[in-house]
């Protein structure tokens, strides 16, 4: 490799900008996992008996499962008994009625992150369901959503207020026994978001949750359930940052989406959790199960993700295309720098007739980052006229980076049309030279090339996120050069 400009060093040495720690008194349970802890969580949240039973059943299954080892990632074994499974801000009992009542320190945290709630409310027109550690403390725009019948609340509220919906849909997309981390989540999840869009309703605004992991040693186990009833439409945004710390934190969320006849769900994620320092110390372990079920005919589920954070990202937002004419989409940009490892991709399971899926995956590996795309396209025997297009491209920056592709294609129906293509390369010297000789600085040139590389994904993001995503990426890649 030729010597690299100063900018690279700047980029490599860049500190995590959102790294700070808010000191709030926590109401935590002692580390460890046993049925007692699950009962404690359930009781603390005032859950009905059926919810507790469901958790205990999941725990039962989990004890019989083994941690999966197949992913292309390396990490020291996680001691799940050393994690505290519940921590909630103190002021749980008297929940704030308005913004003024919210713990000022919480507000300060978000202000430091540059997302003041008021501004969010006014400027972006976004309802924000903040998850500060484990309990949802503030939900905005609820009234406005209630007008059209949209339910958007914390998961614990939904358990109390909408038990019939929860009982009907919880675990119907990701069963408790789906995988090791999903089972763990099912047993100990503390909170999350719940969305229900009634029939023939277009959700009037983009729904958004900001997750933030705060307390020391607390794994976060969110549970998200989104149900789009027949003919409805919703766009959901999820974004995360986490404060800097030196201990690996486990994050094992489960997201379930259900789209009934003619419904459409668009789920966008910008993930920027703490990736660990340049030596790979600290950082979040992000082991997430995300799955959407196109249960109804003509339904559509679209996943868009920009993954720039976490020490290890391990997630496969998937679509089960059960309904006839249903559509699944997956657009992803994943960045792995320093010692980050990402093993991400999607599964498109075609079951219904005339189902279509599109997969666009862009992986960027810098420094010692390892980025793997792992995907499955399965065409079942009865899925006539299924169509899939997959494109996964990788960009390598630095001679210690790695890019890997593991696509599985399984076709059992002769009317299927499946295309898969993948490429791996570095930023071409020709492109760089061209931009430089036009007087564009290295840094801007790289940004331009990388943004072009990711354009197919960024254009799928909602406006607010597209801006944030481009900013995130350029911060992360400032000055890097192939």
């Amino acid at each position, binding site marked *: *490799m030729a010597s690299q400009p100063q900018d690279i060093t700047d980029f490599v040495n860049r500190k995590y900008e959102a790294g700070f720690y808010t000191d709030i008194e926590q109401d935590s349970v002692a580390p460890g996992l046993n049925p007692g802890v699950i009962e404690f969580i359930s009781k603390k949240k005032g859950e009905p008996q059926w919810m507790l039973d469901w958790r205990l059943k999941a725990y039962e299954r989990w004890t019989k499962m083994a941690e999966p080892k*197949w992913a292309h990632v390396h990490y020291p074994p996680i001691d799940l008994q050393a994690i505290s499974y519940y921590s909630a801000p103190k002021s749980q009992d008297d929940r704030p009625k308005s913004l003024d009542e919210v713990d000022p320190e919480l507000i300060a945290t978000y202000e430091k992150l540059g997302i003041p709630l008021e501004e969010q409310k006014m400027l972006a027109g976004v309802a924000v369901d903040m998850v500060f550690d484990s309990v949802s403390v503030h939900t905005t725009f609820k009234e406005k959503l209630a007008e059209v019948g949209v339910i958007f609340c914390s998961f614990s509220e939904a358990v109390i207020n909408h038990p019939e919906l929860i009982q009907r849909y919880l675990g119907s997309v990701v069963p408790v026994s789906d995988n090791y981390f999903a089972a763990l989540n099912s047993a100990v999840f503390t909170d999350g978001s719940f969305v229900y869009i009634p029939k023939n309703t277009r959700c009037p605004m983009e729904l958004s949750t900001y997750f933030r992991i705060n307390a020391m040693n607390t794994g976060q186990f969110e549970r998200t359930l989104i149900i789009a009833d027949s003919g409805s439409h919703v766009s959901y945004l999820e974004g995360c940052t986490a404060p800097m710390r030196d201990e690996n934190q486990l994050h094992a969320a489960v997201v379930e989406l259900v789209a009934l006849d003619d419904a459409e769900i668009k789920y966008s994620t910008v993930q920027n959790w703490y990736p660990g320092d340049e030596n790979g110390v600290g950082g979040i372990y992000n082991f997430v199960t995300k799955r959407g079920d196109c249960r109804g005919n003509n339904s559509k589920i679209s996943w868009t993700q920009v993954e720039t954070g976490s020490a290890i990202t391990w997630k496969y937002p998937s679509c089960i295309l059960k309904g006839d004419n249903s559509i699944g989409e997956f657009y992803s940009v994943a960045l792995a720098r320093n010692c980050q490892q990402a093993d991400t991709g999607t599964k498109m399971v075609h079951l219904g007739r005339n189902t279509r899926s599109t997969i666009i995956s862009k992986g960027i590996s810098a420094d010692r980052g390892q980025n793997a795309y792992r995907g499955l396209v399965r*065409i079942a*025997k009865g899925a006539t006229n299924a169509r899939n297009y997959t494109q996964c491209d*990788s960009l*390598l*920056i*630095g*001679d*210690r*980076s*790695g*890019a*890997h*592709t*593991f*696509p*599985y*294609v*399984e*076709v*059992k*129906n*002769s*009317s*299927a*049309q*499946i*295309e*898969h*293509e*993948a*490429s*791996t*390369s*570095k930023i071409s010297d020709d492109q760089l030279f061209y931009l430089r000789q036009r007087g564009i600085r290295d840094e801007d040139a790289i940004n331009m090339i990388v943004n072009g590389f990711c354009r197919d994904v960024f254009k799928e993001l909602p406006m607010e996120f597209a801006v944030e995503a481009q900013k995130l990426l350029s911060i992360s890649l400032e000055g890097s050069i*192939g």
Partner: protein
Amino acid sequence: MNLLSDQLAEQFQQHAGTLPGAGKPRVADFRREAFTRFEKIGMPTLRQEDWKYTDIRPLRESNYIALGDHESVASNKLTQADLPFPILSSHVAVFLDGIFNSDLSSLDTLPWGVTCTTIADFLQRDGDEVAPFLNQFDTAFPALNCALVEDGMLVQVAAGVNFNEPIQALYVNTVSPGARLNSARLIISASANSEVTIIESHASVAGSTNATNALTEINAETGANVSHYRIQIDNASCHHIGNVYVAVANDASVNTYSFAFGGAITRIDVNADLIGRGAHVTMNGLFMVNDGQHIDHHTRVRHRVGETTSSENYKGIADGNGRGVFNGKILVEQDAQKIEALQSSKNLLLSDNAEIDTKPELEIYADDVKCAHGATVGQLDEDAFFYLRSRGIDEQTARSILTFAFAADIAASVTVAPLREWLERIIMTRTHAAGINEIDDRG
């Protein structure tokens, strides 16, 4: 322990003392270690990622004679006309159930610098000469072959010798009293700047129920040029396991083709290691499956040093209730810069009961690379089909023409004319016919 491995252990204990090279400690120790490895690894199961799509239970849980009892094979008086595969070259070595048959072979007219030695003879020699044979493997079937192999062929080409005529090795499964598991072996050693073309063919006599465990090693030294054509066409009840290992040194180039027309279960692994700058490997392949057939190709190209190139093109056609599997991996090791690697897997699915599973993989640890792969699964182009129909060509013929055209480009790149013609004929027959067994595979 499953059935076959128990039998094999017993047979190995019983015959180890009489296998070729048993008197030579190096060879005997080598076999023992290989068998220990095999036992340690165990027969593959569906639970292993590499065998996810191929269930070898029918092989694993059957009775096979792997060693000894060659008298019954010798009593099989086959003439060249009885062979289930054509003789495509004037230099040919025929192996019946793994054992060299001199009556059917002709290796007398090889020029200076090109030697063909049977493995049985070769292992009787002593000293460092046997070194090309002494490579251990970390997967079950190659290890098993190392332990059990009784015969096979070693082709050695001296430095600077360019030999343009192909050498054919023909491995035949015969009708034997009990089903046999035959170990087929081929070692190609091309010295610096030499050139050689090898046809490795596997076929079975009608009525045979034997299985083959073949192992091929190709070593191309600096500047050598090796073309290797591997053809497999077996009976509906024959299983076939094949492993090809290729090592390519500086500026050497190896073309390795695999044409698989199947038996019952067929699994072929092709592994290439590019170990010197300027090394190149071309891996091409074609498989056709129909009722009751399963063909699985696993290829792996490992770019171990910089400035190496590879190109890979595999095509598959699945009809009836056949199942075709392709798994191709390109691996670029750390610091192996300036790599160009291309891989393509195209598949045609002609029946709703057939299945194609393809998995093109890239694993890249260097940054200055250009690697790409593409995979498709689909059916015949409707427009092309309509075009032919509109010219008065009937449906069946139109289908055949298009299917043939899909498969023929791999065959067209074969430079050995008699082989190319045979391949085109067999592809033609296969694309016309509904069943497989009634086809005269001899063309």
